[in-house]
């Protein structure tokens, strides 16, 4: 028997964090919102099993990320977008710092972005990131080092250009 109260509490406690983490990994807001909602829907479908995991939030994050980067899903979403009329959603314009950070993140390979988010946002250790991304620890370390250096370069470059 699935416990909706327990699920709702889990969702309320973790939803905003997972949404933010996947957004920074993916860089597309509407894709993220849909993927995260879908991941939680799948978690609810199997809540009897997922709730027994050591870290159900990690399961949701992994599923949401995989949904968001699936090109098949993107293709389906593009197609469905033609099939349905949706009211326009007004989103406030992001500030210059946000734009700069998003731009810098987009220039990193997806694997580096994911490692950066899991480490700096989700607070995972190298070993935990390796387990979640099915990579070796040395690969994770390389991604973190390279991603961190690239981000610093990209953001510093932009700052210098702005001051010129």
């Amino acid at each position, binding site marked *: 028997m699935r416990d*909706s109260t327990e*699920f*709702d509490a889990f*969702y309320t406690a973790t*939803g*905003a*964090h997972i*949404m*933010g*983490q996947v*957004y*920074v990994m993916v860089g597309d*807001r509407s894709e*993220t*919102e849909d993927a995260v*909602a*879908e991941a*939680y*829907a*799948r*978690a*609810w*479908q199997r809540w009897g*099993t*997922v709730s027994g*995991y050591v870290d159900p939030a990690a*399961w949701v994050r992994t599923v949401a990320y*995989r*949904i968001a980067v*699936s*090109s*098949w899903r993107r*293709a*389906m979403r593009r*197609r469905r977008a*033609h*099939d349905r009329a949706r009211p326009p959603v007004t989103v406030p314009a*992001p500030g210059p*710092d*946000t734009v700069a*950070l*998003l731009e810098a993140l987009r220039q990193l*390979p*997806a*694997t580096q972005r994911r490692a*950066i988010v899991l480490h*700096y*946002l989700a607070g995972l250790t190298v070993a935990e990131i390796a387990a979640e991304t*099915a*990579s*070796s620890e*040395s*690969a994770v370390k*390389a*991604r973190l080092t390279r991603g*961190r250096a690239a*981000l*610093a370069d990209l*953001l*510093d470059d932009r700052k210098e250009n702005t001051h010129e």
Partner: protein
Amino acid sequence: MSDDDLRDRLAELAAEAGRALPDPRDVRARGDRRRAGLTAAAAGLSVLAVVAGVVGVSFIADPTASFPGRASAQIPSSAPSGATTPPSPSDPAPSGVPATSQPRSPAPTSGPVSMTKIPANLSMLHEGEAGWTTDKDANVPGAFNPCGGVDVTAAGRTDARTLRGPGLPGEESHSPSKVTQQLILYASEQVATAAFVKLSKGGCGWIKSLMNPGDAESTHLARLRKAESYTQVPGVFWLHDAVVVRTGNAVLIAYADASGAGMTSNVADQEIDYILNPLCEARLVCR
């Protein structure tokens, strides 16, 4: 920029997105709709369970199937939703039995059949696509052999078909990849299971990837990855992915080697996903 600065800026960015959280009741309703839809589909397609022995072949026998993200993969714009393209597990629940969930060729006509020869008219996922080659040699080496040496896919084989081609077009410029899709038929389900067990063990640097409930215990699906020293030297394949599925007396392998940036979008996973979606709808094999 210090680590704390980076952490703060990322947290600020993440917090903006986190404010757009839907109501939990909506999320549960979405899950319930999918659950109800899958149950309906499974009931309508229960007959397929009887002929699961041939599904290993028939589920990939859709000559119209093409892989999304490739130049030739155009989703027919005139097709009604879910009518000619395999539904994704993430799609809204179908209202009835999706036509695509039924194997198209060869059509099963009677009770359990253990097919040992791949039909000549079988069309696999990338058959005929530009850049892809087809090998119908039954004794071709296994597309995936975790520890090298003796080919663990060889014993008891009765037929095989192997397709080799490039990775996703959008990623070839920075992450050149080689993809192999291989269907192997065995003399019996037992022999196929034995091959699957050997393939799914991992080891020798191959790490099992557990994405969904039941992955660890799965007797029919395994996903493995091996990462070697990172290098961007073109043509040096440092990242390797394999997904293995066993159904009936058939084993299907999707294998990918990536070089460069290694941004493969989990291409092996997608290969298998695209093939498995109709099967999962019928509750025969799910990830």
